[in-house]
């Protein structure tokens, strides 16, 4: 007979209702999919389990709810902080691996905040993007390295042409699968990508029939589960990406619980209703770099060399050498996903403790590819917590041609980063398949908000480029001269190839 081991954890958040103002409309009770609020004895009363998703705050017509972060209930201890003690208690309760979602939730890994950008003064003129053009058009794909000139001095356009995807800004919406997010959420992201003329990732679940209209702005993901991958699908999209790993959980595959595999997801992924969609940790046909080369070739053959084929890897310690192998294996673009990258579900231990921040990873890859004379052959995409235009600009200066953004786009749609995606009960209708919740997300509104966000970032990019006296974004890619380090550890600056603040040109 099993022993009852579950011990109640202290509350982290609690909705506090101002009963004077409360209209007793009970909208908040219906809003909370976590069933934290109930109406009892003529009052809205909270129960334990609030995750601070803030849906009740948003819905309350009287604006009488605030969510309060509770004081840690634990006695002070400098080493066993409350987070650790909560984890230990939770694991002793269940005996399981702790799951979480969104990106790493640890403070020590942000390097972007330790980097400063340059601006032009006197010796070169800065440019006002409202008066003069500043270009942000970006191409994704392989580059030939040189334009072919025949022996008799003619330029041969055919032999050096490669398939490329054009984007109006150096931003890609990362891969978020249908399954991890709802139909409405994915529809909004794809619609935004079409409107902005950028590329959005499909995630690994295939492509729903309704979304083929956006296919020229989509990058198809081929992950280890191969869910929903057909040759028709691959030929429709603008680019194909083999997903080897993801920054939030390097070395792991995707995990979509059976509860989320309902009619819609089942059809798109081509799997039976209600089955767990578990993609293997490695691709079981890729145990080495030569195997990857074969898969790249197979995908290029199946798409008749009409679309670029890329590879996405998580930022791990040897990322530079791995990336160089991938270029040699024939990849047209590489996505490097940093440690702080988001996820719909990952073991907390790997989310918070494995990999490398994107700042270091993209810099290492850029420098390694340069050393090997490969950097002018391939497009580099960097993702993993690009939170603002400033992060994007710094990331480009560290070597990225394109940045991948997910979490910020989620936030634009309503996400509050409460880190409960893995539970499938998202009150905002984003990371859920429950029909009653999905309907809360209005696709046109969400799409427009994502469009607004990236238009704003692109304007900020132009403003910063102009201030630096640069009138086209490609002249910032890997231009470390325009960055300086101001953080506590100069060794990081050395590894990034960036000078310390205060060091001039000379």
């Amino acid at each position, binding site marked *: 007979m099993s022993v009852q081991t579950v011990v109640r954890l202290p509350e982290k958040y609690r909705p506090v209702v101002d009963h004077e103002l409360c209209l007793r409309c009970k909208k908040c009770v219906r809003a909370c999919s976590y069933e934290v609020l109930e109406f009892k004895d003529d009052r809205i009363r909270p129960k334990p389990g609030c995750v601070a998703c803030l849906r009740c705050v948003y819905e309350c017509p009287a604006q009488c709810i605030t969510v309060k972060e509770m004081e840690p209930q634990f006695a002070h201890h400098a080493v066993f902080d409350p987070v650790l003690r909560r984890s230990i208690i939770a694991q002793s309760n269940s005996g399981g691996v702790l799951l979480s979602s969104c990106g790493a939730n640890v403070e020590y890994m942000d390097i972007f905040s330790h980097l400063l950008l340059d601006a032009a003064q006197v010796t*070169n003129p800065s440019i006002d993007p409202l008066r003069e053009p500043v270009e942000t*058009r970006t191409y994704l794909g392989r580059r030939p*390295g040189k334009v072919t000139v025949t022996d008799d*001095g003619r330029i041969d*356009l055919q032999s050096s*042409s490669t398939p490329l995807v054009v984007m109006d800004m150096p931003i890609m919406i990362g891969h978020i699968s249908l399954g991890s997010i709802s139909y409405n959420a994915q529809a909004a992201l794809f619609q935004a990508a079409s409107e902005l003329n950028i590329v959005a990732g499909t995630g690994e679940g295939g492509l729903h029939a309704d979304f083929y209209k956006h296919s020229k702005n989509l990058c198809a993901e081929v992950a280890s589960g191969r869910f929903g991958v057909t040759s028709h699908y691959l030929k429709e999209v603008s680019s194909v990406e083999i997903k080897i790993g993801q920054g939030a959980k390097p070395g792991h595959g995707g995990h979509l619980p059976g509860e989320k595999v309902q009619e819609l997801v089942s059809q798109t992924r081509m799997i039976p209703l209600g089955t767990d969609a578990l993609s293997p940790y490695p691709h079981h046909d890729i145990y080495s770099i030569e195997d990857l080369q074969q898969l790249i070739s197979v995908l290029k053959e199946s798409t008749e060399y009409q679309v670029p084929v890329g590879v996405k890897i998580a930022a791990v310690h040897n990322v530079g050498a791995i990336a160089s192998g991938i270029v040699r294996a024939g990849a047209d673009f590489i996505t490097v996903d940093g440690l702080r990258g988001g996820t719909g579900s990952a073991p907390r231990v790997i989310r918070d403790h494995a990999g490398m921040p994107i700042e270091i990873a993209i810099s290492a890859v850029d420098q390694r590819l340069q050393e090997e004379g490969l950097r*002018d052959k391939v497009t580099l995409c960097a993702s993993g917590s690009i939170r603002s235009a400033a992060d994007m600009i710094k990331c480009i200066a560290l070597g990225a041609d394109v940045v991948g953004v997910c979490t910020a786009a989620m936030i634009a749609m309503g996400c509050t980063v409460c880190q409960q995606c893995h539970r499938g009960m998202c009150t905002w209708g984003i990371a859920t398949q429950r029909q009653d919740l999905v309907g809360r997300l209005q696709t046109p509104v969400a799409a427009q908000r994502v469009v607004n966000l990236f238009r704003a970032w692109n304007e900020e990019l132009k403003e910063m480029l102009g201030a630096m006296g640069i009138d086209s974004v490609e*002249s910032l890619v890997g*231009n470390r001269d325009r960055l300086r380090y101001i953080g506590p550890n100069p060794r990081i600056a050395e590894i990034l190839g960036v000078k310390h603040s205060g060091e001039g*040109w000379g």
Partner: protein
Amino acid sequence: MLQGNDGPVPASWMASDFDAYPQQGRSYVVDIPHRHKYRMGSCGIAGCINTDGSMISGSKIEKMITTMGERENGLGAGFVCYGLFPDYADEYCLQVLYESDQSRAGLEEYLSDRAYIIKDEKVKTVAVPTMKPPFPLVWRYFIRPKTNTESFWRKGLDEEDYMVHMVMQINQADNGAFCVSSGKNMAVFKGSGYAKEIAQFYDIGRYKGNMWLSHSRFPTNSPGWWAGSHPISILDWSICHNGEITSYGVNKKLVEMAGYKCSLLTDSEVITYLWDLLVRRHGLPIPAASFAMAPWYYKDIDRLDEQLRQLALQLRITYKEAFLNGPFSILVGRSEPNVTMIALADRKKLRPLVMGVSEDGNSVFAASEECAIKAVQKDAETWAPKAGNPVVVRLGEGIVRRGTEAPFQGVRL
């Protein structure tokens, strides 16, 4: 044409006296100043070419560049002359700045292992009282690389790339020697000082050639470093550059990937290597190479006819690291296949560039300011080339492009 090298050398200029100069700290005559890693500047540029093959005296270019005195602050100037050594036209001419006699001995040993030294001579220099010592010893070598040695074939390079490699090696080493030019039938004369002083130092009036380019500097951050002055040269390429490259870090990546070593650490250096890479090594026609360095905006490219649009896009995307962002105007010289002057301004034309041609059409001039042209050719008809549009003038052919044509005129597909 060299007019002999027979002038008396002042006693204080004897090579053995070099080490006797008071050395306060490091002198930075020749080797890279260690604390100074990068220099920027704005400058004056001037050039003239006689397309009928007649000779131009150095005093003419001196007049041009010194007319624009406003554009310099005494921290560097230089000249390059093409068609200078008709008697040794097939030999590479190395012009080297030395810190001491010892460094000369060292480099000569290095050179004789790798090349036949056909002729060598001391370059005449004249003491200029207003200039700040110390001064380098300047030597000239006419060499032919030894292509039958093991060291040659093991590098797997052709003769020209081998020369580039040698110059890179010489200039990378902390050896008190700096090779300022290495092309055929041309030589660079440059140093730290006002253009007037540098002209006096080399007695520039004693040289005659088919084409001259020159440069005077107004650097914003600079030690007195002779080798870092313009023109910057590799093989028969030489560049006089007015501007500041805001994409330097990107351009440097491309040339380093192609094997060039940035030892001068000025943004102008990468421009020299880019021309060598794109035109000599990749074989691009000059208008195509210019387009890669100063490309059209995408919105304008999209308006081109389909085939030209494809060409423009392919150049822009393939050579995006060759795109020179920021303000510049440059004069580019080359002696092969024929003495050629190229003048190019950035795609916004944020730095000045004026062209001029004499009434008989035989003399063509380029300068930052019109006054420099009018000072030597009153009757010159002047015009302004368009932003990002190259002017090409070639010995025997005259004005090939005026810098006002369609972008790919003359490029064959």
